[in-house]
């Protein structure tokens, strides 16, 4: 139960930090799972538009019971409403928006990220493959790709690696990684540690990261 609570709190912490990536005026795609949670923390003064790849530009809040429309869902198949100014489109048009890099930001989950920006988040060999859904398109489809995930896996092993061991979702696509412990940027000079979360030290982050980490000159400590 304590572990469960911890998990929930960790997720919330990551989601809240990820929310800071979203600037007013942004068009954003939030991946299924924890990324979807980010929407709950978006500050009211920010004017942002959430895109859902099943053909909704402008996801609104969850419907009240009497507002539920079975024809209106998000990409996670949850019932939603449409925000003011929303529009519907076909899946081809929706991915035209994505592929054409008209979105400012996508926040997605990750299993592994490599120091060159490779991302693996869709299959584990030997396990049933459910499919990549829209992930392989979305990683090429926003001006900035942010991956949010736990810093280490359930065995305590790093998820930020020299190179991914799992089949890739995209090659060299990640711009920033936000974990429960740190914010790390993928740059041409390798990974750069830019923020350290409350309760963690630079050394601890380095120890729990397989790749080499440069420390930013403007490193923020205890930033979230």
């Amino acid at each position, binding site marked *: 139960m304590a572990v469960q609570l911890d998990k929930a709190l960790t997720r919330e912490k990551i989601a809240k930090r990820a929310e800071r990536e979203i600037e007013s005026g942004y068009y954003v795609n939030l991946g299924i799972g924890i990324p979807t949670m980010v929407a709950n923390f978006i500050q009211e003064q920010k004017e942002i538009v959430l895109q859902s790849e099943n053909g909704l530009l402008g996801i609104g809040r969850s419907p009240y019971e009497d507002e539920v429309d079975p024809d*209106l869902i998000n990409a996670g*198949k949850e019932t939603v409403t449409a925000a003011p100014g929303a529009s519907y489109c076909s*899946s081809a048009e929706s991915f035209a928006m994505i592929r054409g890099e008209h979105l400012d930001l996508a926040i997605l989950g990750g299993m592994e990220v490599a120091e060159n920006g490779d991302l693996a988040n869709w299959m584990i060999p030997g396990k049933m493959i459910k499919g990549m859904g*829209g992930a392989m398109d979305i990683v090429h489809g926003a001006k900035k790709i942010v991956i949010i995930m736990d810093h280490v896996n359930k065995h305590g092993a790093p998820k930020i690696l020299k190179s991914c061991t799992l089949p890739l979702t995209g090659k060299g696509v990640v711009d920033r990684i936000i974990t429960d412990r740190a914010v790390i940027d993928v740059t041409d000079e390798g990974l750069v540690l830019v923020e350290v979360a409350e309760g963690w030290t630079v050394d601890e982050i380095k120890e729990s990261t397989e790749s080499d980490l440069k420390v930013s000159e403007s490193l923020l400590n205890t930033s979230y």
Partner: protein
Amino acid sequence: MKTIYTSFQEAVKRIEDYSTIMVGGFGLVGIPENLIKALVESEVKHLTVISNNCGVDDWGLGLLLKNKQIDKMIGSYVGENKEFERQVLEGELEVELTPQGTLAERIRAGGAGIPAFYTPAGVGTPIAEGKEVRSFDGKEYLLQTGLTADYSFVRAAKGDRYGNLIYNKTARNFNPMIATAGKVTIAEVEALVEPEEMNPDHIHTPGIYVQGLIEGIQEKRIERLTVRQEA
């Protein structure tokens, strides 16, 4: 001008074993429920089905699957279905996974007479195996081919006797492209209306793509009901 069917059995009866069928919908939203059920009853076998998802265990394309009518499935996400998993693991069902945006574009291309196009999705991933990779302006892309089908089943909110269709909200999803890519496209509509009720500026699928229509009542099952509590 178009064939207006009065029974779903009639609408699917020409479909033969080994046909390729495209089916609209995303999850359970916008699926042609009654056409799928009629296909199950028809007992037609060895189908290749192209659809973003494959329904759930007891609804949508899951019903066809359960009845072992599908030999091959082309889609982007098939994770809500235990029977699907069983058939794949036992080698009864072939699966071709395609990134969702690539799938949507391949279907659009098929309907639009474009045999192939380049897309960034899948470069450097298992999807790229056996596919041409080519650089444009220093970035790598995969060559993907257009998809067509013997039959396309779509669902729309409104249709008229000219075959024009209008979809409702996110029930549009894959339906407009799928309507263009079938040699024979049959639309299940919630309401068959007079042409005058269809504003020519609001039509999503022009009638040229549609060969037959049938009116039906849908259950519209909800996969993940998510509601906000009244304040």
